[in-house]
């Protein structure tokens, strides 16, 4: 299932202070002892926003960076587009080093390859909805009618048709963020950055927008870096996610990996509140070794345990779990579910596709 890597972040550091560069040799971020260097930087009255951050984003993947405020997640996403200049490390986009790029090349890259959605929308107050969405095309010098036509298509895509002539302040928060999303998609970028896009919205609207976002991604297949401070949001939308703390990545993995095998107590703090039956799926707890028994029900691997439970009550013998590819991947009995919910750690059951 592993798609090619779109964006790769290698040992990226961001240090604020008087002389941030002096901690690194020619901007090389790969050091022997990252923790020691981080301590040294903090000891020298410099602020460490990102410490030795490495991750890959695959083509078509939703990669979520989750962390509390001050953890460095917003700095990281800004490093990816060089709105914030990393102090050391490498950022490879399709294998090309973004940090080695000159001014003009960078602008070209931003124009063609990237789109970004901001927490507080970042809409231009002086432009109408239509012109806001057309703005990235305007700076490219695309003729007015052509860019407006494209912008209109994007506005339709996010369901704002009819509001083209409105100004941002005349829209609700949810509508404004739809404009922000339409704008970020206007240049049809391959990379899509979203910096806490739904944090400023009411809970109900937030859920709607999350569903909307997932629907869009099913159509568009972008490579996505999504920033959030909301663990539940991360679980809902992430293909893979990274948890950041104090500028460093604590753990990277699929949501279920984090829940089942938290790397440390900090990650466990988040997973403790997670209602596991809503997150764990039949595929996660299926026992591949046990053979099916006649009379077992059949259920898809992505069924959550919450939905599985009533089904299991009707099939006392257990159920057979069928993977996305149509092959059975194992069976589940009531005691498997109980054990999983009780301990959270089913024995060797890493589920491979």
């Amino acid at each position, binding site marked *: 299932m592993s798609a090619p890597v779109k964006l790769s972040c290698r040992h990226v550091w961001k240090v604020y202070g008087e002389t941030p560069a002096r901690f690194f040799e020619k901007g090389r971020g790969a050091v022997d002892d990252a923790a020691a260097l981080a301590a040294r930087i903090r000891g020298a009255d410099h602020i460490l926003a990102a410490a030795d951050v490495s991750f890959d984003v695959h083509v078509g993947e939703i990669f979520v960076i989750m962390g509390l405020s001050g953890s460095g997640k917003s700095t990281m996403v*800004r490093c990816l*587009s060089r*709105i914030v200049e990393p102090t050391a490390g490498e950022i490879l986009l399709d294998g090309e080093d973004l940090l080695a790029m000159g001014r003009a090349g960078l*602008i*070209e*890259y*931003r*124009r*063609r390859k*990237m*789109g*970004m959605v*901001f*927490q*507080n*929308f*970042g*809409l*231009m*107050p*002086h*432009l*109408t909805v239509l012109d806001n969405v057309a*703005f*990235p095309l*305007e*700076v*490219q010098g695309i003729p007015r009618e052509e860019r407006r036509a494209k912008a209109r298509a994007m506005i339709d895509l996010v369901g704002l048709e009819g509001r083209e*002539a*409105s*100004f941002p302040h*005349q829209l609700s928060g949810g509508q404004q963020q739809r404009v*922000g999303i339409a*704008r970020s998609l206007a*240049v049809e970028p391959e990379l899509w*950055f979203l910096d806490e896009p739904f944090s400023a919205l009411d809970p109900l609207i937030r859920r709607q927008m999350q569903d909307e976002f997932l629907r869009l991604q099913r159509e568009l297949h972008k490579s996505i870096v999504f920033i959030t401070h909301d663990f539940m949001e991360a679980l809902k939308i992430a293909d893979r996610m990274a948890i950041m703390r104090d500028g460093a990545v604590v753990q990277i993995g699929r949501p279920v990996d984090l829940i089942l095998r938290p790397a440390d107590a900090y990650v466990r703090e988040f997973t403790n509140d997670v209602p596991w039956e809503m997150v764990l799926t039949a595929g996660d707890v299926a026992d591949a070794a046990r053979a099916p028994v006649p009379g077992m029900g059949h259920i898809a691997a992505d069924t959550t345990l919450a939905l599985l439970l009533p089904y299991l009550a009707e099939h006392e013998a257990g159920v057979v779990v069928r993977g996305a590819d149509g092959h059975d991947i194992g069976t589940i009995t009531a005691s498997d579910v109980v054990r999983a919910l009780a301990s959270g750690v089913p024995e060797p059951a890493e589920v491979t596709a």
Partner: protein
Amino acid sequence: MNAIPRGPLVWLALAALTLVLWLTGGPLATYPDAWIASPAAAMNAGMDAFTDAAGAGFRAVGSVLEWPVDGAQALLGLLPWSVTTAVFVLLGYYGSGWRLAVFVALAMLYMAGIGYWDESMNSLAIVLISVPMAVAIGFALGVLGFYSARARRVIMPVLDVLQTIPAFAYLLPILILFGFGTTVGLVASILYAFPPMVRNTILGLRAVPEEIIEAGTISGATAAQLFWKVRFPAARAQLLLGVNQTTMAALSMVIIASIIGGTNDIGWEVLSAMRKADFGVSLLTGFVLALIAMALDRITHGFATRPRAIEWEGRSPWAVAAAVVGGVAMLSLLIPALRDWPEALVWDPAPAMNAALERVIVEGRAWIDGIKNSAFFYVMLPIKIGLAKAVSPFTWGFALTPALIAGYAALVLGLAALAWRSGRTTLAALIPLWGVVSYIGLTQTPWLALVGIVVHTAYVTGGRRLALGAAAGMAFLLLAGIWPEAVLSLYLCGIAVLICFVLGTALGVWASESRTVSAILRPVMDTLQTMPVFVILIPFLMFFKIGEFTALLAIIAYAIVPAIRYTEHGLRNLPASVLEAAETMGCTRWQLLTRVKLPLALPAIMLGLNQTILYGIGMLVIAALVGTTGLGQQIYIGLGNGDFGVGMTAGIGMAIIAMIADRMTQAVSRKRQERFGMRMAGM
């Protein structure tokens, strides 16, 4: 009782020093002429040398600058009044709507109707030329200051100086460098009007949310696109507010500059009418100034604040405007009355107004004199020359006998003792000082003692650096030989500020508690603030004639506005959660006001005091027109004699007083804010 803290002891020592120096006299009480080392002569010499070297260049620049002004004046003079009116009415309509359009139309009809059309247009022409120049300079410097911290460190102090030196002091060097003519008004108004544009530009560009800039960056905008397509338009409202302030400043300076004369503009008409004591004409023409100011203010303010989303149904506003103006122009070719306002329709109520005023003054003489004399004898004179000299059988009806003096001393000491007993040691120490200074009078207070009082106040409010600055500033006043004038200015301004503060704060509190009062006060304050300063003098001059009392009233009328505004604003914008909490705890309305609102609003009130002081000092120079003595008068003397040194020294002196007062009040306000952990919202 514990040991007496040091602060109160210093105050007591200063009181004793004041008394002793006053009793003994000598060079430490009256600053001897022999110690004066005025820079005026050196300034004149420097200016002469400079004029010799660069004067030709300046005059060349001046004559170039005269072209656009002459051109604009010729154009406005040539255009039929109906066409000019149509243009401004349309501007009013697009800026704010039909109400403003009607107002502008009435104002222009009034100008033509009383027969001062040409003079009005001449003033307007200078404003129309100076505003774009001031805006361009201010915008360029603002952008520079926004991007470069180093440039900002140079620009900001220069703006401070330009805005604290009284406007009149500008005129003198400009006059010397450029020679007589319309250029003086133009250059002065550009210099006076560009600082607000710089400030608003920096403020506006800074206030653009970082996310918007980031959105532009990630869209791939180049640096130029980022500025012109993102930052600049997003800061538009603030920039247009800068244009509004620049326009008003330019207009006020054009009017002030008309004091030089020879420009046949409306400001000159007002001034000469005032000098001839022709109150009817001065009121009529002053009203023209007020109307021009209000119209320009509302139009530019309208453009700054109108919502972006104006839909023009199909037709372009330009086409409509062109059609209307073209139509009016065609009509004016057919109908002569639309070209030049017919003589027969000129309305001159001035003689009738003068007669009416005469009757009022004659009938009400007892009242008018009563008000004037009691204010003068019981308030102004005692502060100026002290109870010691002010109390006489002629003024108060009795002489100051030794028994009365002893009684006064006993009263002061008794009050001090009372304060001491209730634990307010600082107040207890301040009361004797107040008693001594009141007895001696401000102008009679020994200079060394006054310096000590000011420096110590600076130290208490703003720390060592402010104290040093205050000492240096006062050393300049002494050395330059303008100490007596400075004290006179301080006296007049001090009374005005005190009255403004008490009255203004009270009105502000009232306005914050009552919507009705607020609704009544707001248009009055708006009018007072947009009104050109000369005009404020006129009504007081009508009743009370020339003199310090008239000046005092004019200063109060002008400087009371910020005291009211800031108080009301401060009280109305307190955190709602705190007020709710206090109410939930059962505070009465009075308790809420005195225990919660006023203490929390104190930083805002102090900022209001700060503005009141600066306004008061600014008005002081204008007030010198109606016969006050002090630094303001010195500036006029300098201006009248073309004596750069004298005028400039006095101007710097006023700037010094303004800056010391400004830093002291700001320091108090800032301390208070820091203590509460609050930040003031911009006013």
